């Protein structure tokens, strides 16, 4: 036989504490500038960049201007403004398949000097050139080529992430074939800088050039894009969670009683609020993972609370002459080992994710840890006291309704939807209550069976 722990005794203190924490927490969140919305919810710039080694460089020393244009099909050079008139040279990659053949042909153009830096046999289809046409001059202009083997890569995505780490939260994805080293860089626009678009793209380009070499970074495209998920998603989550809680309220009302249902919902809301306070105060980035974490905790907290309530319901039927407070204490004590073991195992899993995970997976785990701890706490110290309070309030209201009539057991029995705790056994010292054991009374068929 176990000793019953008096969980209920501290209820007023803890409920007040929770209210204060939540109220002060939200105030602090909004005073410190609200939530940090993650990159998925913000507009920003999308840059397509490629890190590509140099294939060859070109110089032009003749008269007039020489413009070069490289596209997917070939390399074109137009020389204009010379005395001999305009000249056009077109080299289709189909025809000049290897770099050396292209190079030797280029050298025949008067005034052009080409210096190879890539292997002779390089497939010219791999040449990349952007923001062309460009004018050739005495300064060498480089033409790059895309890598095609993963083993040759010199700028894997992790290296890019490292070199851009000073920019704060960015998103990096490879585009197309991994080995081409073409990436999409996404930086969120916090709305402070008016010329964000221009400044940020310059900054990204400079950082990349610093890490991978002045001539090895090609910025292919820069666009201003809207957010990946609209902010409505967060609102939608709130509304849907609210409605889901309402449905849960109805189910628990139906399966238990109104007081239980309210207790469960209040406890769940409490957990969500504390999580939101935590996320706001510690400025954890709000991403889709945060939404997932909040939803997860709603599920966890409800689950946790219902298990305790189920025990209370079972015990109220068994211990009819015991005060509700005592029944609650007994029930929480009985299910305590389960509550703790479940919380521990789940925490074990989530802690592993938190300790070893990175990025948004780590944030997700952190949110869950807070949620699980709070969820476990609330199912013990918030849900049952609220349930108790609501039961007492309804009791008092009912008593006031028919003050004259003393409550009789029989009446309560008949009217099952009413609380059964009215028969009061005075138990001044609940701390030393011993859990009474009572076998559930068999009813109906099973009783008949037993008699036989």
């Amino acid at each position, binding site marked *: 036989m176990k000793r019953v722990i008096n969980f209920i005794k501290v209820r007023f203190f803890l409920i007040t504490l929770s209210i204060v924490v939540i109220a002060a927490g939200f105030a602090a969140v909004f005073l410190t500038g609200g939530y940090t919305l993650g990159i998925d919810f913000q507009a920003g710039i999308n840059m397509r960049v490629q890190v590509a080694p140099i294939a060859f460089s070109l110089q032009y020393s003749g008269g007039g201007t020489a413009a070069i244009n490289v596209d997917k099909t070939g390399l074109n050079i137009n020389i204009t403004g010379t005395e001999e008139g305009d000249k056009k040279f077109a080299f289709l990659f189909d025809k000049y398949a290897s770099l050396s053949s292209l190079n030797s042909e280029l050298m025949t153009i008067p005034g052009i000097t080409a210096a190879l830096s890539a292997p002779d046999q390089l497939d010219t289809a791999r040449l990349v050139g952007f923001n062309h046409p460009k004018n050739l001059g005495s300064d060498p202009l480089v033409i790059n080529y895309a890598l095609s083997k993963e083993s040759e890569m010199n700028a894997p995505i992790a290296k890019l992430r490292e070199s851009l780490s000073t920019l704060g939260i960015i998103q990096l994805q490879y585009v197309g074939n991994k080995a081409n080293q073409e990436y999409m860089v996404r930086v969120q626009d916090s709305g402070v800088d008016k010329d964000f678009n221009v400044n940020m793209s310059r900054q990204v380009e400079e950082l990349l050039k610093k890490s991978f070499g002045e001539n090895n970074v090609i910025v292919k495209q820069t666009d201003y894009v809207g957010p990946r998920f609209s902010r409505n998603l967060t609102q939608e989550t709130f509304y849907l969670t609210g409605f889901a809680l309402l449905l849960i309220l109805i189910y628990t009302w139906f399966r238990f009683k109104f007081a239980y249902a309210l207790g469960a919902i209040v406890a769940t809301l409490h957990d969500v609020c504390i999580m939101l306070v935590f996320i706001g105060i510690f400025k954890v980035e709000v991403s*889709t993972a945060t939404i997932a974490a909040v939803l997860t905790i709603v599920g966890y907290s409800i689950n946790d609370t*219902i298990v305790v309530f189920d025990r209370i319901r079972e015990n109220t039927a068994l211990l009819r002459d015991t005060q509700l407070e005592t029944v609650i204490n007994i029930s929480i004590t009985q299910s305590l080992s389960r509550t703790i073991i479940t919380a521990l195992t789940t925490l074990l*899993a989530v802690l592993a994710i938190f300790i070893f995970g990175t990025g948004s997976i780590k944030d997700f785990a952190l949110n869950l840890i807070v949620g699980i701890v709070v969820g476990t706490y609330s199912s013990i110290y918030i849900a049952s006291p609220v349930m108790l309070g609501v039961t007492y309030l309804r009791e008092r209201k009912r008593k006031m309704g028919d003050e004259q009539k003393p409550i009789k057991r029989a009446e309560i029995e008949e009217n099952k939807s009413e609380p059964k705790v009215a028969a009061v056994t005075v138990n001044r010292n609940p701390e030393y209550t011993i859990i009474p054991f009572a076998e559930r009374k068999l009813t109906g068929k099973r009783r008949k069976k037993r008699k036989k």
Partner: protein
Amino acid sequence: MSKRVRFLILIVVLVVSGSFLYPTFRWYFLIGRDDKELASGSKQQIRDYSQKKASEDLNILKGKVKSDPEALIPENMSFIVDTAKRNYKLAEKPFPVQWNIKSVLEGFRTEKEIFDVIESQYLQEILSLKEYHDNVLQLGLDLSGGMNVVLEADMKSLAQRLGHEPTEADKKSAMDRAMEILNNRIDKFGVTEPQIRRQGTEEITIEIPGAADPERVRSFLMGKGRLNFHIVNDEATTKLQEYMASNPSAAISSGDDLELPPGFLDAGLAVRGFYKKDKYGIDQRIRYLVITEEAGLDGNHIKDAQVGSDPITGQPVINFSLDREGGEIFFKLTSANVNKTLAIVLDDKIKAGARISEPIRDSVRMTGFDKKEAGDLAIVLRTAAMPVDLKVMSQQAIGATLGEDSIRIGLRAITLGFLLVIGFMLIYYLGAGINAVVAQILNLYLMIAVLSAFNLTLTLTSIAGFVLTIGMAVDANVIIFERIKEEYRLGKSIEASVKAGFRKAFWTIMDSNITTFIAAIFLSQLGTGPIQGFAYTLAVGIVTSMFTALFVSRLMFDFNIEVRKIKKLSISWRPR
């Protein structure tokens, strides 16, 4: 239920889930990378590939029949033996003594026949791979990337539709509308968790999880989706055909803009190609028809469109109803043109023609599309036409939005977490812990199987659903074991304790799971994107975890008690 029946049920469940899981397993572990790429290639690529392979194989056969006619058909081409046998039978020729290259090839009349057989075999292989791909658990954009498509709005088409140069406000509203329609369509085509956003002012970026399959993009863009009805001018068509017969060079010039001598057609008439799909689903022009240039009826008048099938031919039929105004126009049009041909024109291609036998008012049946096309078209018709033409600017594979390292590390951490839970259960509950562990592993297996069957896209939020489910599954086991322990400590027999433990835990588990299940179902129906992914995973997980905790774990206890006849209940370090 007897143990045997329960065991049988368990086996059935395991086998069925196995069959759900098999495509996913095969796709990720058995199918080569090249094949996967091919399966997500465009129809054109598939055709080129099949034809190239078929002609290679044919050349091998032709070479062999000269050098070594007695040799057997190579293993990978054994399927042509079956066709050869059938041909022998049809021609009532006696079967040869041996099915060697020579005798097999004699089963075909022309080289083309052999080529066709081999080509269809390759095509079938790819198509079945493609089908496979639709039954596979996909990884979302955040975990494994997908395809990035940039669409550009053609503002000229907007100007044409508006009748004046579009203002900034016009452009913006057209773009907003286009985004909305795209969202709508992609949803209806069953692409899970796509992301659509504005890029610059005149571009839209779509990101779709999974392999870069251009067909999928095409399917929801569905060209411009402009459907019109025109009357075919029979006389001019005959004249055109005569002209083409005498000028074969004109027919060869490809493209829809057939070059005709000026004044050949009367004003108000236009030439359009009539297209049928070949076996790859690529439009092939069969002939040219001359139609009235002005549409007899604009597709915008279509109110609702449903796909059915013709009761006699079994061909797909699109039934649609017109709004009142459209009905009037259509009635007038068909009354005036009885016995003429009505051409159904989709994006300037004639897709079908039908003779008008009587005036029709508002309910129309349309045939001439294959099943998929009919389905896609019905969706396009229902979701309204794009306000502005969208062009595909680029289409490229992209990596995961979460860093790859972070995913790899994250997955490792999740596995570690799972192992820790298992370890804890074994240490804390000893023998009974084994039940819990088996239940957990089965739960994961069943979950992944069911989710594969739903063709769900797994994202970080779905993984959150997994984590919660694992927590709840452990919880169910803990509730049961703690109950059994309580009963056992009261001095009951093993059998009675287990029985009472399960009985008392049953409603606790049910209640707590049903409450969460209600929320999960609700969120899965109304939520979008990540919320939905989470809710689906959770809903499935709740069902499977209840099954494993209440059914499988119970079966294991009963087996231990009744068959192994254990004397001591191994559930705690201090049993009594």
